[in-house]
């Protein structure tokens, strides 16, 4: 989902950066507030960032014959709310833009928007909906993480289609082409991200049940081991 350095026209780059900035700012505020109220959650905040670090470093082959990577942002969005992931995801993207020439500084705003804003907000919303219709906790987490991941890549496709409409078919044709690269490749990877997120939640529920309950997550109580 990384749009490469310099590969968004300047106007688009500026517009996406402007769109992302308020989310990052509000996210920093929400994290500060959370840490002031619950200093014990600082380590868990680190875990959310670390999860994104790991998952976005894993290039996994897909059935389309190309490789892509999960994003890992759904996990933190469920724990700390979607806004918190904007600055945390930005840290990961900045690391990759500066050290790996993966993504870029001019495309940072657009990449933050897809991975650290749309993904987490989608994951959070889907989780709430799944809980509202009383789906089991594990399934809700899976759907949230997997669909948040997928929608991140759909967003990247939209961003590129807006910037580079097809000379013949326009925006729609272009969107189909970019989605063919990003969204299709991402489907099995999104499922993997869903599975891994459930896995981490299982581990947390087992050892940190009390901490999770203070986060207003309906974690099922552990049955005696």
């Amino acid at each position, binding site marked *: *989902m*990384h749009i*490469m*350095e*310099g*590969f968004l026209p*300047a106007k688009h780059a500026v517009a996406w950066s402007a769109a992302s900035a308020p989310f990052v700012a509000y996210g920093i505020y929400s994290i500060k507030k959370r840490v002031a109220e619950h200093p014990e959650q600082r*380590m868990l905040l*680190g*875990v959310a960032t*670390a*999860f*994104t*670090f*790991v*998952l976005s*470093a*894993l*290039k996994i*082959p*897909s*059935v*389309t*014959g*190309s*490789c*892509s990577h999960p994003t890992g942002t759904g996990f933190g969005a469920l724990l700390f709310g979607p806004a918190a992931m904007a600055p945390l995801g930005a840290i990961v993207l900045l*690391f*990759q833009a*500066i*050290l*790996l*020439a*993966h993504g*870029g*500084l*001019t495309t940072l705003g657009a990449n933050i928007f897809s991975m650290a804003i749309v993904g987490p907000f989608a994951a959070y919303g889907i989780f709430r909906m799944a809980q509202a219709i009383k789906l089991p906790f594990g399934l809700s987490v899976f759907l949230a993480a997997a669909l948040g991941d997928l929608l991140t890549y759909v967003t990247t496709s939209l961003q*590129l289609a807006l910037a*580079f409409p097809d*000379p013949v078919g326009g925006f729609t044709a*272009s969107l189909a*082409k*970019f989605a063919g*690269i*990003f969204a299709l*490749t991402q489907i*099995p990877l999104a499922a*993997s991200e869903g*599975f*891994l997120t*459930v*896995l*981490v939640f*299982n*581990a*947390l529920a*087992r*050892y*940190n049940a009390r901490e999770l309950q203070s986060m207003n997550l309906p974690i099922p109580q552990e049955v005696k*081991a």
Partner: protein
Amino acid sequence: MKPYQNISLIIAVIVLALIPLVTVQRPEPGPDGKKVEIFAGADGQAEDLIKQIVPDYKPWFEPFFEPPSGEIESLLFALQAALGAGFIGYYLGSAATRSRLQKELNRPRVD
């Protein structure tokens, strides 16, 4: 806790990554006899598609630093994953120990 859930989740992730390695066939080499590259990054493919849609598009900004080789790039990616996995492992390890010690403390003493 459902006994086999975690192990099934891990197996599912591995299987999802293995399926493409078996099912995706490398296309025949083109007229130039070069091996066709498969499992390239989607990001790079999008870059190629941009060049195809707008052939005269020039990236207007270059990265300040690019990993000098594929090896160094994989070093940095491995470092990124290791940092994250190390932190998560540390956290879960200390959480597991803490919950075990707490259980021991709460156990009624027999002597």
